[in-house]
């Protein structure tokens, strides 16, 4: 049977980008459907009735939701190529732990950096750097979070790179000045075709935010 793979997404969603990178790494052909966050499609509401959010991967008619769960699903279904998680259970646990950390910490604080002002924003900026310093510590001098090869944690985090210009513009700071290792790592990831073709231009993301 021919696989039918559809992705419901929003081009600037750092969560949707994770899925697009995973599909590209595995060479999976799929139909991309851009949703409208101001006017959610019937298909989205039907496929993700609980959260009503993108991304949703629809594989042979069956929906999978939540970006990191989708990435693990992709890794398990298309298992013969480009493993995204390590094979050793301890390494897998570390990958899941850090991807979880990214999900629980990075999104919230990043949003507050651009969406708040005054004291709240200052607190968010400080927390932002604390979190990225922890991530820098975890990366160490490895080329990728997973070690020698690009993997699950890299996918979880690198998509935020497309929003860095937004954070820097609103937060009036330079991420490279505080976290040069993270920027070097992000640029290394951008040399991979799956990442370069997925991540939108940083200025385009800022423009779309300003015009929305």
């Amino acid at each position, binding site marked *: 049977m021919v696989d039918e793979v559809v992705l419901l997404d929003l081009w600037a969603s750092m969560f949707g980008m994770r899925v697009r990178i995973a599909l590209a790494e595995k060479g999976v052909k799929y139909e991309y459907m851009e949703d409208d966050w101001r006017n959610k499609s019937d298909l989205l509401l039907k496929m993700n009735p609980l959260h009503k959010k993108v991304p949703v991967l629809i594989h042979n008619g069956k929906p999978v939701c939540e970006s990191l769960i989708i990435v693990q699903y992709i890794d398990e*279904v298309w298992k013969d190529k480009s493993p995204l998680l390590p094979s050793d*259970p301890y390494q897998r*646990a570390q990958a899941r732990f850090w991807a979880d950390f990214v999900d629980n910490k990075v999104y919230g604080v990043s949003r507050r950096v651009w969406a708040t002002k005054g004291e709240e924003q200052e607190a968010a900026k400080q927390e932002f750097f604390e979190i990225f310093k922890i991530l820098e510590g975890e990366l160490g001098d490895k080329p990728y979070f997973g070690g020698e090869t690009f993997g699950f944690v890299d996918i979880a985090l690198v998509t935020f790179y497309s929003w860095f210009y937004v954070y820097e513009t609103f937060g009036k700071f330079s991420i490279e000045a505080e976290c040069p290792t993270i920027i070097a790592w992000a640029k290394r990831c951008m040399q991979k075709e799956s990442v370069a073709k997925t991540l939108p231009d940083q200025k385009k993301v800022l423009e779309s935010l300003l015009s929305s």
Partner: protein
Amino acid sequence: MAEEVKLFRTWSSPVALRVIWALELKGIPYEVILEDLSNKSSLLLQYNPIHKKVPVLVHNGKSIAESLVILEYVEETWKQTPLLPEDPYERAMERFWAKFGDDKVLPSLWNVFNKQGKDQEEAIVPAQENLTYLEELLRGKIFFSGERIGFLDLAFGWLANMVSVFEEVMGATVLDNQKLPSLSAWMKNFMDAPIIKESWPPRDKLITKYQALREARIEKEAPK
């Protein structure tokens, strides 16, 4: 090499119980290290420097934190009595609902617990909506994972014990047995299941603890 498995837990932590259940169901010998979160041991801080919380599993000296991450590690390391289904889609579904439990169901119940009066009445609505999703998920099944206890039952296991503790402490009902018959039946089946039933912390101690916690929180919220 002899396996060395240690689990850092507190006497009452519902999420630490998930790991206990998994280890017990798979018949893995382990040593418990009981923590007092008001006075964390240096070992705990060494093994979980990021979150400084329980549970932490230490297997032959290597530590893993976050209960659902630990469950997947236990599942992949000790393959007897599998907890997750083999099919990737079914696995994705169990992970999705486990995440819903931790991200939405538990916080919505805490929200009811931390409030009183009209605020509490308002907080009960989304909590009951969340429980209704679980009722639908269970329909036609004994356990969330099917015929036997699995990953998703362990993920939701805290409900079987904590809902009635919360309700007794608050003097309010959140889970209506009439409206949620499948969920009520699951709670009873899970509560009384072999291995599970021996693991619950002493109920009177839980009531005392959560009574004190609720009083402290309500006092904190009260207008001065």
